[in-house]
């Protein structure tokens, strides 16, 4: 993808299709080690060992409309093209953890892109699901947890309310800026 953020969006759809009620996205930047790690964890229906093996095969898909599924294979390839790695762990009935490690200095590194936009869109388009977004950068970090937002907002205000969506966008932008601020 042109942006890893778009790929995260694509892969997160698998978690949603797997019936997850909680999806945790972690983006960890370690500048000194030259590593960017993206982890997506869900409590969806999980996969058997055989399904885990086949999910990295682009010719495997759970969709019936087409015979090719490229979300996970491309994500894996993009990580490996930078000299990074990819792993997927899953347990039937428990959920799935997918992790991609990138080497940002590599010439084939695809930019992370608008990851905050991805998070905002995931929350807004799936107001009944919960998301945790944690982003770290060289020891600094912030977290946004929709379960906490729900507590503050109460039951009457849905997470796809335009004002809430605006607030999420502003919060993520502000927190990301703080993360990147010079020490």
């Amino acid at each position, binding site marked *: *993808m*042109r942006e890893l953020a*778009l*790929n995260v969006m694509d892969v997160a759809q698998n978690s949603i299709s797997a019936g997850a009620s909680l999806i945790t996205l972690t983006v960890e930047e370690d500048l000194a080690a030259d590593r960017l790690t993206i982890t997506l964890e869900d409590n969806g229906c999980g996969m058997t060992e055989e399904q885990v093996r086949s999910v990295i*095969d*682009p*010719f495997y898909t759970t969709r019936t409309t*087409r*015979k*090719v599924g*490229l979300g996970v*294979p*491309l994500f894996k*390839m993009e990580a490996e093209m930078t000299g990074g790695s990819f792993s997927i762990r899953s347990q039937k009935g428990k959920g799935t953890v997918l992790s991609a490690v990138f080497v940002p200095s590599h010439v084939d590194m695809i930019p992370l892109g608008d990851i905050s936009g991805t998070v905002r869109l995931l929350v807004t388009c799936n107001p009944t699901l919960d998301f945790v977004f944690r982003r770290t950068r060289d020891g600094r970090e912030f977290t946004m947890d929709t379960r906490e937002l729900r507590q503050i907002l109460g039951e009457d205000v849905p997470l796809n309310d335009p004002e809430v969506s605006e607030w999420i966008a502003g919060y993520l932008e502000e927190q990301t800026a703080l993360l990147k601020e010079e020490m």
Partner: protein
Amino acid sequence: MTIRELADGLRAEILVEGDLTREAETGYVGDLLSWVMARLPEGAAWMTVMGNLNAVAVCSLKDGACIILTENAALDEDARRRAGMEDIPVLRVEDGAYRTALRVAALLGETA
């Protein structure tokens, strides 16, 4: 023009036979698979350096006519096998994408 005629015209190496009788409608050049996935025209001869399983999947998904590996790019073994199963011809040429595209366009009678 069929893929076999195109391969002859390009003096390309045929790595996977596939359906060589299929017509090449046009050409397309690209290496960023997610990009190509959104844009490869149906029936196009696709010029790329990506000789992996994902590239075969993209070609299959978009119903491309063949893959032309440029600059003698390598074809992975699993990609070779899968292209055979999918009946997708894979050709290989020495020229880069730019020169190959010029030659494909000339063979197909396409102009800018």
